[in-house]
């Protein structure tokens, strides 16, 4: 019974996580400017990574593997926003202006 539940969690986690990773990557390609693409990359880092890692935790053979996966989750939880913030700070400092509603098309003018 438990094994069936773990398998379901594993399947939902991995396939759902994979879907979010692809959605994040699609957003990374299609969105108009750097700042909105950061949002798309954030989708991959948060929902995609968490679902996949939780799915793997459900499938992990022993406790040590589950703890390692949890550590990876915690690590991504802290480093992803920090690096995105540093990137936004550097981009804004580098002169990249976000796309306003009036102008269209690629706006990264640096």
């Amino acid at each position, binding site marked *: 019974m438990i094994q069936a539940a773990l398998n379901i969690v594993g399947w939902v986690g991995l*396939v759902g996580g*994979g879907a979010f990773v692809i959605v994040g990557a699609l957003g990374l390609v299609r969105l108009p400017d750097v700042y909105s693409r950061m949002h798309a990359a954030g989708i991959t*880092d948060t929902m*995609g990574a968490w679902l996949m890692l939780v799915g793997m935790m459900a499938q992990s053979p022993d406790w040590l593997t589950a703890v390692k996966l949890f550590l990876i989750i915690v690590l991504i939880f802290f480093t992803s926003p920090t690096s995105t913030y540093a*990137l936004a700070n*550097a981009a804004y400092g580098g002169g*990249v202006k976000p796309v306003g509603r009036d102008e269209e098309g690629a706006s990264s003018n640096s």
Partner: protein
Amino acid sequence: MMFAAGTAAIVVAMLLALVRAFLGPSLYDRVLAVNSFGTKTVLMIAVLGFLAGRPDFLDIALLYALINFIGIIAVLKFFRYGDLGRAGPKAAEEEIK
């Protein structure tokens, strides 16, 4: 079998991240794409560790996530202040004046 599905999804996402890395008009698009690619590599190593039945791959994934973060911050600092030698923003302000 589920791990194969996860791996396929990550490979597709990696290709899309590479597309953004090549297309990216500004430097910051490329840094963003490389950062996203690094996170996907972490997930890929973890999934392949499960696929190959080797749970010790997760140490590599953990380490890769750390190094990816540090690499991104180093690149950003280099392009923000011109070189990595400066101690920090205060030192940069004096030198810029």
